[in-house]
Each structure stands twice: as structure tokens, then as C-alpha cells.
């Protein structure tokens, strides 16, 4: 899939990578795999940096 689901986690950001063949929509995956009550965004994969040198310093912006 070309999209990612991002949500805040412990002051940083968690990024959900959906499986293309799982039979669920992005919204269904978000409903199941994002912790209850936590806001999230669906973004294009191009918005996620590929350089992970400072991965733990990434932050979630709403």
C-alpha cells in the first residue's frame, strides 16, 4: 500500500505499515491497530522520511 497510518506514541510517532493483501481497508486497519482513543492520520508514504538516523526523535504533528 502507498499509505501509512501515523499516531502519537510516547512523545514520538508510531507508523503503521498496512499489508496489501490483508483484505482490510486503511480505515479498518486504523480502527483495529491504532490504540483506542488515540488520534491518527493517513499519509502518503512519500511523506515519511526514509533516513531513519534520528528515528526516535520524530514527532507527531496534527
Amino acid at each position, binding site marked *: 500500500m502507498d499509505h501509512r497510518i501515523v499516531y502519537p506514541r510516547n512523545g514520538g510517532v508510531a507508523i503503521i*505499515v498496512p499489508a496489501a493483501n490483508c483484505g482490510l481497508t486503511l480505515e479498518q486497519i486504523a480502527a483495529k491497530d491504532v490504540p483506542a482513543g488515540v488520534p491518527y492520520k493517513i499519509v502518503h508514504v512519500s511523506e515519511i522520511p526514509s533516513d531513519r538516523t534520528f528515528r526516535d526523535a520524530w514527532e507527531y504533528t496534527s
Partner: protein
Amino acid sequence: MSITIDGGAGITFPDTVQQTNGMTMTGGNPKYYAARAWVNFNGTGTVTIRAAVNVSSITDNGTGDYTINFTTAMPDVNYAAVVVGQQNDGGSTNQTTQLFDGGVYTTSRFDVFGQSSNGSNVDSAIVCAVVFR
């Protein structure tokens, strides 16, 4: 050979059963059991699932910190998750990929961590996980 149901002998399956989802279960003694879920994903760069069965997604929580989320939950938490990761530094340091005490391990998901010999989290180039129950 077909499936037979006998009140005394129970149910007898043929040597090979092709399930509707494409997985194959083979008979024998001891019997073989297909994995309930498996996934192969890139843990560095743009984290991407390469292939998966019964995995809805993986969550990139941070450096060397991933969660594997099942599409259909396991029947209980007594499943066996086997994980392995590929080093991303060409083998210059010791690096393991493992389950951690304190990590999530529920019927819906479990955590996988990549760690270097000095105890810090490190990304794995490729992470593979298989689940049996």
C-alpha cells in the same frame, strides 16, 4: 483419498489438505501444521511489508522497535512466535532480533525488537516472523 468420519476412529484427513486460502497442511506422524501467520518486512529505510499472511499491518514504533498486528486474532496467547532479523551493518556488530520481556504479546499483536550487543535498539534490514498455534 477423501475425508472420512467414523464414530470410532474419528475424522481422517487425506495426506495433503489444500485450504481455501492457499495454505497446505500435510499429514504424517507427527503431523505438520501450517503457520497461523507470517510476515517478512524491511526494517530500514522506508519500512515496507514484502509479504505476509494473516498480518494486517506492522507498526514502526521507533528504532528497532516493531509491532506485528494480526488480521485474525490468535485463539489465545500461548502461540509460538519465531522471529529473526537480518543485520543492517554488514555483520560488523553483534545484533539480535527478539521478543522482550515487557513487550506486547497478546492475541492481537506482539512486539519485536532489534538490539545490538551494547543493548541499544537497532533497525534490522529484514525482519521475518512466523506464528504457530
